[in-house]
């Protein structure tokens, strides 16, 4: 039994769905780990019920004794590290999201502890994790030697399984040393309502064949029915059809959804680097020899301007 902490990420006051897979992993192979949820924002009392459904025994509402927690990534990392010490946690895990990657790296660096980044599976007893190396071409098993194991988990990599328990909320006020001076001064909203690509359980990606920025509406419409996010290949981004924030692959986002629909994407190595760990890949392309088919689970040879509307219609 290992007392394991999980940094919970919230969005608009709600727990991001992808946290539940991390909580599932935190319970350990035998499912007997004591799981502490660490909250640095959001209303702990309101979120407790949902966390306990996934085996959380203690919900720690972390605050700062003095200073603005929300504006300082250094203070956030320091506060999580302080909570790990206060509650004698032996492992702390979180999502390999933009925020999680940053906070865990800050924490690992300041505590001078190893960190296994972006794991697709974790073994807390062995203090090891499996992660991608070489742009998704290999899996590396990395083992750490530390009293406190730190790791981040790729969103959607571990399936969430409920294990309801009774839990309680504890408050922890952290005192942290002054950081080197990084301040968040503003958060600029995106186009509103868009699902984060790295969090999305289903992704539809448009490639060069999408032909224009306007044609992405066709993918958006289908995505809405699947609860999916819409991505773009590098070719589509470079052609100006989509912003870089939507790019999947090398120099873009790395994603691992349950379902990945590549729509008019040829399937370059650099594209696979960003989506290879998807559970099911479906390729749709007019060219039967497109590389995408060699590495997909299902293929449809056809024009996306016929297939996608037909899919949208069938899903309605």
């Amino acid at each position, binding site marked *: 039994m290992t007392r394991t902490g999980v940094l919970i990420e919230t969005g608009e006051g709600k727990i991001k769905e992808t946290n539940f897979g991390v909580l599932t992993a935190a319970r350990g192979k035998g499912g007997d780990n004591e799981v502490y949820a660490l909250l640095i924002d959001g209303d702990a009392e309101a979120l407790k019920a949902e966390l306990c459904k996934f085996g959380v025994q203690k919900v720690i509402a972390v605050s700062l004794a003095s200073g603005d927690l929300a504006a300082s990534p250094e203070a956030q990392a320091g506060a999580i590290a302080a909570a790990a010490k206060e509650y004698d946690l032996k492992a702390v895990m979180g999502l390999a*999201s*933009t925020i999680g*990657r*940053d906070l865990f*790296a*800050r924490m*690992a*660096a300041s505590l001078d502890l*190893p*960190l*296994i980044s972006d794991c697709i599976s974790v073994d807390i007893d062995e203090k*090891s994790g499996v992660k*991608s*190396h*070489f*742009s998704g*071409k*290999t899996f590396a*098993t*990395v*083992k*750490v*030697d*530390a009293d406190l194991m730190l790791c981040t988990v790729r969103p959607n990599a571990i399936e969430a399984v409920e294990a309801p328990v009774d839990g309680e909320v504890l408050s922890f006020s952290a005192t942290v040393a002054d*950081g*080197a*001076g990084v301040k*968040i*001064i503003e*958060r*600029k*909203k*995106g*186009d509103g309502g*868009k699902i*984060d*690509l790295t969090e999305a359980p*289903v992704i539809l990606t448009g490639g060069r064949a999408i032909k224009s920025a306007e044609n992405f509406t066709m993918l958006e419409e289908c995505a809405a029915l699947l609860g999916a996010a819409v991505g773009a290949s590098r070719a589509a981004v470079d052609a100006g059809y989509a912003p870089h924030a*939507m790019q999947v692959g*090398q*120099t*873009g986002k790395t994603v691992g959804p349950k*379902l990945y629909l590549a729509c008019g994407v040829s399937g370059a190595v*650099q594209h696979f*680097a960003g989506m290879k*760990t998807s*559970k*099911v890949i479906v390729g749709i392309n007019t060219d039967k020899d497109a590389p995408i*088919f*060699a*590495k997909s*689970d*299902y*293929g*449809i040879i*056809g024009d996306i301007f*016929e297939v996608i509307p*037909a*899919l949208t219609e*069938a899903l309605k």
Partner: protein
Amino acid sequence: MKIFVCIKHVPDTAANIKLVGDNGFEDSECKFIVNPYDEYGLEEAVSLVEKEGGEVVVVTVGKGAATATLRSAMAMGAARAIHVQTQGQFLDSTLTAKALKAAMDQDGAADLIFTGKGSVDTEGAQTQYRLAAAMGLPVVNEVSRLTIDGQKATMEKEIGGGEREVLEMPLPGIIGATKGLNEPRYPKFPDIMKAKKKKIQEMAIGDLGIDENAGASQLVKLEAVPERSGAKMLEGSVQEQVAQLIKVLREDEKII
């Protein structure tokens, strides 16, 4: 303005990785390049120095063959290079950071340090943070927009769903660059020729008092990701194929 750019010598992302033993790969058989994300940091450093004067120094920790990678970086505009030489490709990020710090300390303080947001070989994205902690400097990673105003850097990073965070930090500091920051230049032939004459200062990691095998994390196993054996092609009219797809996703895969 003096700027250090930390670069990594990594296998080309398109290279085939031939695994050797439990945790090694055959590096003599693949092409190596400057880690793609580091190029954004390098381009930013070179254009800052072109505007304001100063010097860009590239620093790497890696095997002897990394010389070629340093030459490529100098062809992009760095004035000189420092090469901390290792025996292996995989170094614990704590040790890489220590080696980078030791090399930079010997060379003298800089106004700014760039790295890439992470490397495409080990995909850890930790070294810049460990370097910052070791040097007592602030760090912001995944920077896609940067403005420098005297002793202050203002940066933007994308945090998902198109949302952006604006951050500020005092300088000197460390910036982990990513796509969006700029468009890295392609070196022209004269730049490549000039780079051959630029100075590379070499030192062994052991001479900096660092044991490259003493890391707290260990790469136990490296294995090829199982390749899909080719798609099951659906058949029939567009409507029939779509109907089949929905059926397998619902009934066999149970994912929608």
